[in-house]
């Protein structure tokens, strides 16, 4: 009986994940287009918040450069319309990765507050440079793109989201993930124990930047109209942070949970009261910081630590120790 339980426990999660993947892969066949469109945004924010959390969660660095990285993908896509989309996705991702490398190299020596200010300033720099470039060099305010078919966009985003989750999960479980967490605990101590902190920071940041750029490359033809204010909107830096912290960065599924809940919630609000959307998100965020310092995951975790005592009770009983 116990062995059946153990086996089902071990295989339950992968089976469940496969089932979810199969459901998502076949979904456009039997749900209304509205839901498919909603899922495109959900995938986009899952990609952004999971990528953000993969670097910022364990290392305790707060990056506000998401808008810059995502916007790089968006702009690559709008400039390279002639090429087939899969190659544009890769190029957008790679350019974003390069930018990530650059940020990593420059921001190497910056910590805490300085890193946040730097990444925030960099996103704004890119936005303003692109506005200046569009007005003075190309003479256009924005660009029109051929709109991408909903179903195609859905599968592209699903694919990128899947790869993002897989890579960040493996990254988190690897020695690399351990090194990142040690940086988060104490960077100096980590460096002293032989972790190449700079390499770990730069490489992880660049890898996560790739996914943000790739997502941007798909979203550009979805939006069909692109200008620097949209592509590098500071809100895009803010969203993933809200989602990841709302879900909780302590667990792998935290940012996913946060992204799904907030996207659905903001979609519901957006549909009814468009003007209140961002207002509401700001408020949610403030409430999260005030009352949910560890996110939704934190609530679950607290229960778990509570039941930890019960676990000891079970062991005591098995061993025949009376407490």
């Amino acid at each position, binding site marked *: 009986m116990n062995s059946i339980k153990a086996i089902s426990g071990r295989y339950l999660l992968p089976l469940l994940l496969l089932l979810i993947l199969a459901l998502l892969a076949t979904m456009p066949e039997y749900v209304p287009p509205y839901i498919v469109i909603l899922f495109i945004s959900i995938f986009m924010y899952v990609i952004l918040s999971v990528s953000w959390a993969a670097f910022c969660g364990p290392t305790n660095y707060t990056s506000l450069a998401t808008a810059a990285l995502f916007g790089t993908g968006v702009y690559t896509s709008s400039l390279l319309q002639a090429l087939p989309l899969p190659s544009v996705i890769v190029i957008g991702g790679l350019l974003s990765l390069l930018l990530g490398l650059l940020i990593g190299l420059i921001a190497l020596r910056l910590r805490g*507050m300085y890193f946040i200010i*730097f990444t925030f300033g960099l996103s704004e720099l890119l936005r303003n440079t692109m506005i200046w470039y569009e007005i003075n060099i190309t003479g256009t305010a924005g660009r029109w793109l051929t709109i991408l078919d909903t179903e195609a966009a859905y599968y592209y985003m699903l694919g990128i989201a899947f790869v993002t989750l897989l890579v960040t999960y493996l990254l988190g479980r690897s020695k690399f993930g351990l090194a990142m967490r040690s940086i988060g605990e104490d960077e100096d101590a980590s460096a002293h124990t032989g972790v190449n902190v700079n390499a770990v920071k730069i490489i992880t940041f660049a890898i996560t930047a790739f996914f943000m750029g790739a997502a941007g490359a798909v979203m550009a033809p979805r939006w069909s109209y692109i200008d620097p204010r949209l592509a590098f909107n500071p809100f895009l830096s803010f969203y993933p942070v809200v989602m990841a912290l709302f879900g909780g960065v302590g667990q792998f599924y935290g940012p996913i949970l946060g992204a799904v809940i907030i996207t659905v919630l903001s979609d519901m609000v957006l549909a009814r009261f468009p003007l209140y959307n961002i*207002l509401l998100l700001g408020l949610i965020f403030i409430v999260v910081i005030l009352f949910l310092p560890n996110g939704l995951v934190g609530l679950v975790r607290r229960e778990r630590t509570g039941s930890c005592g019960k676990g000891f009770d079970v062991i005591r009983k098995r061993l025949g120790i009376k407490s």
Partner: protein
Amino acid sequence: MITTFLDITVTGLIMGGIYALIAVGLNLQYGVSRVLNLAHGEFIMLGAMAAYFFYTLFGISPLISLIICAPLVFLIAIGVYKILFERIRKSSKSMVAFEGSSLLAAFGLSFVLQNAAALAFGSNTKAYSYLIQSVTFAGATFAVNRLVALFFAVVFCLAVYFFLRLTRMGKAIRAITQSLDTAQLMGVKVYRELGISFGLGAVLAGLAGVLLSPFSQISPFMGLQYIIIALIVVVLGGLGNILGSLAAGFILGFVGSIVMFIQPGFTLAAYYLVFLIILLVKPTGIFAR
């Protein structure tokens, strides 16, 4: 030649005065209460909005708006501090954690204020004209409203300087920027000073908003450009070094006016360049020892 020189100098002073005012406010908040208030630009927006509506609806001159806005913004800011940041401070495990979460909370607050303002006042861009006549001095022409803004910006900057240097409370605030614990041991009512510093910082932003309202595009989203400049100035002068921001504001103003003279499109790019160089070469600011 003398005209060009005068042109660059006065433009630099005007820009520098406003930048210094904004940056000193931001740094007063960060240096003392440790909140890097990314919603600082929204307090500028509130000041500018108030000046606009007071002028267009009731015909109240922006100079009188200065007097009305100061206590108004102070109360709002104290409220925000008590409700938001003081709670975060109490629930944070460490100072680093508090700085991180308060920055993010301020970022959230900026979106709340922007969109609340857009709902209340409409999201279109507003402008009004006040003291638009110009004076010509040695061949260089300046709008009176900018000169008035410069005058008051300098007055407020000096007021902050002497407040911090000469008064008892200023001394207490400077003590807190050096060491909160020691200041507390010396009998400074730390928690009161933290709130007051945050409020004062916001007041400076609100006053700057009123001052620049006659010659700016007033919109709910105008704050962003100023917060960026304020951050650059604060980093230039040193995070937490309040008097450093005062000097750095004028330095950046002069950089701006010189670049604007050579190639107007590159002002912002020049600011970012200064910002990047400072962050890379001396992140603690140019006045750090």
